[in-house]
Every structure is written in C-alpha cells, then in structure tokens.
C-alpha cells in the first residue's frame, strides 16, 4: 500500500530491531504508531554500521549480540502489519545482510511480510539495477537517501528511482542528535523538489518538538532515529514502550 503522511508534518520513527529485544521492539513500534508515527522504519542491526553515530552503533551491537537476524526483522514486520494494517512500514538495512539472504529472496520476503518500502543505507542509485527490478516486481517502494553534498544530477537520479518518499539527510555527517535543524536542510529539500513530486522526509539530528515543527515549515515529514534509540537505551525494557509513546506524542506539541 502507498506510504502516506496523514499528519503535517508526518513522523517517521526509526527503531533498531532487537534492541533491547524483538518483543520490546514490537511493543514500542505499536505504541509509536498509536501515538502518531505515520511510518515505522525497522532497522536491521549490522556489525559495521559505518553511517551511524555512537547511539545507533551501540543499539546495533546489542541487537547483533542477541543474535537478531534479518529473518527475525522480517517476521517482526509481519506481526506489525497484522496488528496495524494502515501504518507505513519500511525496512531499513545495510546491504550485506540482504546480499547474504539474496536480493530476490529478500524483496519477496519483504513483500510477504507486508512492508511498504525498503531503504538500503549503502545502496546508491548507480548500483541499484537488480534491487530496483526486484522492488518493482514486488510492488515495493525503494527509498533513497539524498545528501546536501549530492549535485543536481544525482538528485535527479535519486528522485527518479525513489518511491514512497525521499529521505533528505539534514546535514553532512553520521546519524545522531544535535541542537538545531541543520541549515543545509531547507536548501536540500528545495533542490529536491525540482526533481520529484514525492513527499520529502528529513532525517539526521531531529530530536524534539521544536525540530519537528521547524522541519514542517519546508518538508513533509521528520525522521526521528537516534533520539528514540537513546531513549530506549536509557529506559528499562518494560517501561520503554510507554516512554516512547509519550515522546512521540510530545513531538506534536510544538
């Protein structure tokens, strides 16, 4: 089904699947949806998350240490889809676990699990031939990242290859929270609009209601990652879902 941002701005919630454990990730995702997250990005933990800052690195390390596998994340996606038929569901992974499973098998399994889209952190449009073909076969949305450093020719190609939404990286750097929405972000979103009519979601460093409001001025959705993962890290597992629910609700208070 198409990814839809019912709110303005929409909220995309990133969770590292399996941190602290898969059952808790499920509970957190459900509460996040019920409190206003339009799209859940289910992160597949990876041993070498080189685009991520310390918060998501640690979450990834914990989830890998618990033995969380891509197949577990697909099963979790299926549970979420069954429980919340209308929410947006995106699988977020580094490439290697997908390569290990097989691109064709992965895309079919993602479809079967009920995912709407896929984002592969280290997949650029030039290398995406097989990936795009499989995504098309399975009627899934390939979501690509656009960076402040991407020249117009790349933004064009990214816009043309993406479906669902385009993920605009707010600043040059790795994931992690910061005080203000980066000044790179509005300009990048404006440049992207020249090449795509898809919704544009802004991520990296978005962590509070003020940021969400600021993003709403120029983009369609805000992506909350490290701030959520850090909250889960510091909260006892049994209290994590409730804390995340309140946090998501609070993001709309600005």
């Amino acid at each position, binding site marked *: 089904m198409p990814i839809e941002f019912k709110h303005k701005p929409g909220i995309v919630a990133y969770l590292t699947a399996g941190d602290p454990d898969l059952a808790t990730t499920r509970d957190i995702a459900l509460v996040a949806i019920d409190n206003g997250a339009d799209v859940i990005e289910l992160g597949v933990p*990876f*041993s*070498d*998350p*080189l*685009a991520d*800052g310390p918060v998501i*690195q640690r979450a990834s*390390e914990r989830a*890998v240490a618990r033995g969380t*596998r*891509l*197949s577990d994340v697909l099963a979790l996606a299926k549970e979420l889809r069954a429980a919340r038929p209308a929410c947006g569901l995106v699988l977020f992974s*580094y*490439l*290697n*676990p*997908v*390569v*290990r*499973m097989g691109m064709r098998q992965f895309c079919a399994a993602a479809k079967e699990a009920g995912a709407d889209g896929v984002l592969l*952190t*280290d*997949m*650029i*449009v*030039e*290398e*995406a*031939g097989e990936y*795009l073909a499989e995504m098309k076969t399975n009627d899934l949305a390939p979501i*690509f*990242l*656009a*960076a*402040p*450093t*991407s*020249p117009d*020719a*790349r933004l*064009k*190609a*990214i816009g*043309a*290859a993406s479906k669902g939404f385009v993920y605009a*990286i707010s600043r*040059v*750097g*790795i994931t992690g929270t910061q005080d203000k929405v980066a000044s790179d972000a509005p300009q990048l979103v404006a440049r992207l609009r020249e*090449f795509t009519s898809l919704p544009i979601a802004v991520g990296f460093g978005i962590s509070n209601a003020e940021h969400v409001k600021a993003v709403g001025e120029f983009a369609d959705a805000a992506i909350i990652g490290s701030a959520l993962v850090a909250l889960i890290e510091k909260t006892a597992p049994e209290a994590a879902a409730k804390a995340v629910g309140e946090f998501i609700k609070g993001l709309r208070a600005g």
Partner: protein
Amino acid sequence: MATMVSPVEVAAEVKGRFGAYGGRYVPETLMAALEELEQAYDVAQTDPAFHAELDGLLHHYCGRPTPLYFAKRMTEQLGGAQIYLKREDLLHTGAHKINNALGQGLLAKRMGKQRIIAETGAGQHGVATATVCALLGLDCVIYMGEEDMRRQELNVYRMRLLGAEVRGVNSGSATLKDAINEAMRDWVTNVRTTYYILGSALGAHPYPTMVRNFHRVISIEARRQFLEEVGKLPDAVVACVGGGSNAIGAFYEFLPDASVRLIGVEAGGRGTALGEHAARFQKVGGGLPGVLQGTYSYVLQNDAGQVSSTHSVSAGLDYASVGPEHANLHDTGRAEYVSCSDTDALKATVALSRTEGILPALESAHAVAEAMRIAPLLGKDRIIMINLSGRGDKDMGILARELDLKGAGPATPKGSL
C-alpha cells in the same frame, strides 16, 4: 528529450568493476567526494607533471627502485627453487605503503585538501601517511584499533612524533575493520575539507584501482629487474594478502605472463573456525561474496550476513574482507590464494632473519613461509619471488613475547624450525 537521468543510464557509466566485484556501496553523502576524487585522479594520471613529482620523490625521498635480492643461503637451505626478495622493506618508513600514501598525498595537495585522515592496521600505512603529511605540510589524523595500538605500539609513537593525531577505536574487535569504519564516519562528517588516504586496495571506486596503480611500480621494477639481472621471469610471485595492496602491486605487471604463478598468502591465524583467522578465500573459513566498507568482495561473515571478527598475529592481515581485484583473480583462477598459520609465519620470521640477516614484518613473513613450503617441491632451475613488503622492527614486542627473546640464548619459536 527528457532531462531526467534514469538510474539505468547512470549505471552504464559505473566503473571500478573487477568481474562481478568492486563497485561503490557507500552512504550518499560520500558520492560527491568519490566523484570529485575520481575526476582529480583521472586528470592527475594523465599529467606528466604529477608523475614527474611522484617519481622524483619515490626515487630521492623513498629510495626507489628497491633491490631485487637473491637469497642465496635461504635457497641453499631449502634445496629447491631459487628465492629472490623484492625489497620493499628497504623503502623509506619500512614498507611498501609509502608508494600509495605519497601518491594520494600529492593528489590531496592538488585537490586543495588540507586535512588528511587515514586508517591503519599494523601502523605502516599510518606511519607512511603521517610521513607524507609532514613532507607536504598537511594536517593528519590516523584511526587505529586499540588492539592494534597495543600490539604495534612503536608505530603509534612514530606517528605521533611525525605530528599526526592517533585516534584509538574501541568498537568491534578494535582492529583494522573498525578503524576503517571510524575513518569513514569522519570522512562523511568532514567530507568538504578532508581527503581520506585509504591504505589498501579496498573500498569504493576509485580506491581499489588508484591504490593498485600507485603500487604497480613494484611489479614494473621487478619484471624489468628479472629480465635484466636474472635473464628470465620468475616462475612464481608470492605476496601476503590482507587488503591486498602489496600483492596487487607485485602481481599486476605479471598478469599477462601466463608462466608466472601468482600466489597470495592470507592469514591462517590459529584455526579454521570463523573468528580464528583472516583467510577469506579458504573454503572452510566462512568467506563469501558480500559488501563491506564500500566494495563487493569476499567477506568473512556468519550465515546472517554479520561480519565476523578475525584473528592474526599480524595486524596488517587481520581484516574480514579483501580487495575486489583479488576476488576476481581468485574466481578466474589467475592467482592462487593459500593461507599460513601464525606459527608458520613466526618460524619464517626466524628463518629469514637467521639465513639472510633480514627481519621481515610479520605480514611479509606469511609470504616467506609459503615460499619456504613450495621451494623444496620445485626444481633448482625454478625461481620464486617473494614480495618482502615490510620490515619487522615494528613487531619486536610481539616477537619478544612469542619467541622468548628475553632468555640468554637464541630464540626458538614454538615448534621446531
């Protein structure tokens, strides 16, 4: 005409493939920098002034050409093929790494990048990069796994003395792979001002091609030296393979010479179980094609696609993946890849030291060990070239411990020679 660039059109332009391997698998933020680098490299490569400066420094500053040395006593003791050493250990800073660090340093300077970052495993690439930064007046930050900082402590001191900042990395197994992750995070963050001098024939295009080309000088010289000084080509070229930069440099000009066997030696570590070695190409070891740190190549990984930790007595070979060009040479069968245990590398270190008075780096000792294994199986008219990629002074701490050098007598490694 539509002005949209379709992904398929862009795909047709992708370079940097070695058979199925290589490519570019990086966060989008780095793509502009990789394109800028590729363009600058392409221009430099055809600029005689760039080559004149590089060749001048390789000669006057680094000491090229390095000798091709006939290891007479080792040959006699082994009783088979003649052993020749390509003496990259005699280069300035003590290893082949300076060939590439200097080339990329000059390129960074041309591109107007003042800040240099690099990763290092054994510390040889870090030292080479710190040296080049001192020479060219550039700022230098080196990422190094904390485990590697412990076992290659002398190189950490050398880098600091040369003016580099050494940043310890304690994630994962705190070795080379983790140092590359951290260097890439730095690069993503500071990409507008920073040049990343990647130290092996790894990573996203254009690095594997560029690094190989800066090390091709090894086989260009060696091939000429064999023809001029020995009168014929060697029957085999043996080199250790971590990321594979010295090996690809030593192999490259011999690729069209079908009579020359090319043998890469991986770290067999202390066993065949995943995590106990860094032998990506050995059938039982858990190495399969995958994507790590920007390139598609063989990767040691579990069945869920998580990258494995590795072990080797030599920090420079202790890496879960391997350069993509080696992956292709492996699959096509043009090069053979074998492995050598920690123990055999230590024995080879002692053997070369005692027969020739040459202390090899533990990395290079893996190649020496393989040459020692095959030389007796070959006739005396056969010739083996070992690419002696580095010297072993940096390993004295490990050697003192492993070889019991603190006693009064000469060292004896575990097991007999």
